[in-house]
């Protein structure tokens, strides 16, 4: 068991270290987040629609698009010197590899999602609403499910001729629950509704994340083996 944790930690740390040194994904995702907020702002005619009304949905969509950017590249950093082959030939169980990569992606995406929230609050003049803690929790649960599915299918799409362009097609249909419950909860919290109203949303987001992580752990080995 401790070997398992050591292995997961080693891979997680390696991915984060590489990201810290290259900063390529976090910069791309961060820039995307801010620029999207700007574009969205200009796309809303304030005479017809109040920005606050649509903010929640736009926040989640920005997280999704930005997330795809980052997650799609998960296996690129492994590809340069065939490093992934070396990883697969080590005694690390494949589900450990999946968990580590998912956690690394989650860390990356969660940070970006908080940035997105902050930028939208700034540009769209939003209040934090009933419970910032619950809001942050909703973002976390949604991001986790998204990242689990994204990591699994990023492995699939990197193995095809189409590469990352295939990723949205595979992932988007499955994200409907995340958007429905995530944006729904966010909208309510931002509109000062009581936390009890979003308890169901959070439960569904949690279940969604659980299923996504479990499915990914079990199925990852079939995707990466030869």
């Amino acid at each position, binding site marked *: 068991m401790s070997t398992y944790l050591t292995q997961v930690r*080693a891979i997680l740390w*390696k991915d984060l270290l*590489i990201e810290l040194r290259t900063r390529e994904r976090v910069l791309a995702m961060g820039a995307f987040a801010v620029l999207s907020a700007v574009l969205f702002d200009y796309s809303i005619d304030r005479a017809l629609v109040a920005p606050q009304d649509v903010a929640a949905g736009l926040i989640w969509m920005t997280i999704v698009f930005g997330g795809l950017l980052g997650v799609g590249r998960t296996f690129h950093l492994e590809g*340069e*010197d065939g490093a992934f*082959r*070396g990883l697969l030939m080590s*005694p690390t169980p494949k589900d450990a590899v999946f968990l580590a990569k998912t956690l690394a992606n989650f860390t990356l995406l969660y940070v970006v999602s908080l940035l997105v929230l902050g930028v939208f609050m700034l540009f769209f003049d939003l209040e934090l609403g009933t419970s910032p803690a619950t809001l942050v929790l909703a973002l976390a649960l949604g991001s986790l499910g998204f990242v689990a599915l994204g990591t699994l299918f990023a492995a699939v799409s990197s193995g095809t001729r189409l590469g990352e362009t295939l990723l949205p097609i595979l992932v988007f249909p499955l994200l409907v629950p995340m958007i429905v419950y995530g944006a729904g909860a966010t909208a309510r919290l931002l509109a000062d509704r009581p936390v009890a109203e979003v308890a169901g949303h959070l439960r569904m987001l949690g279940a969604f994340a659980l299923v996504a992580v479990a499915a990914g752990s079990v199925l990852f080995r079939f995707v990466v083996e030869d």
Partner: protein
Amino acid sequence: MEAGPAGPAARAAQRDAGPVLEARGLVREYGPVLAVDGIDVVLGEGEFLAVFGPNGAGKSSLLAMLGGALRPTRGSVRVRGTLLDAGDDGWRHRIGALSHQGFLYLQLTAEENLRFYGRLFGLRDLDERIPARLERVGLAARARTRVRELSHGMRQRLALARALLHDPDLVLLDEPYTGLDPSASAVLRDVLTELRDGRRTVVMVTHDLGSGLELATRVAIQVDGRFGWTGEASALSRAGFERFYHEVVEGRVGAEGSGAGGPEVPS
């Protein structure tokens, strides 16, 4: 097609320990393409098999199957009696692999790369082991250098250190000499000689007939997914072998022979 009868000392070792590597009936299909068409490899401790052959003969696929990196379409591979199976990864401790790719992370330093692999393999004494291994391949001064700043020769030396970090029983090398400068080549030859003398088991695919013959105890020539010829290395001379190699590859020689049958030994 067995890979030739072993010499007396090796045979004795085999009787005691059982083969280190036992691969039977390996076949690999990629959809309609047949890359490997029925190959057996049985090796004991201290044996060094050099596999020669033209491009497209399926050598890399064979090596990948021997290392458990590729699932055979048919056939089985056992390392020290354990079947290479996706189920339990324990046997992976016994295998070390090196290819023309180094399996290295370019953004990390030499030392960080080794530390990463060391942790994956559950090694405890990394603080002592890593400096020693870097020293062995002449990279002690570069421990803190990022791999992307190392030359190809240095990367290969690091990759060699990585492949051997966990002291595997079976070492698989896929064209390790490609693109190496003389000092890196020398280090490689040193380390490989040490492996063979230390009774480790090695399978090396290479285009470099000279180095291959020098290091090997057994030789195989792979053509079109099969071993066209296998035999003892000690009986071969460099010059004679080169001619013989071309003949086998062009199909003029090489019925499914094994054992002592082979090229004339002129001197």
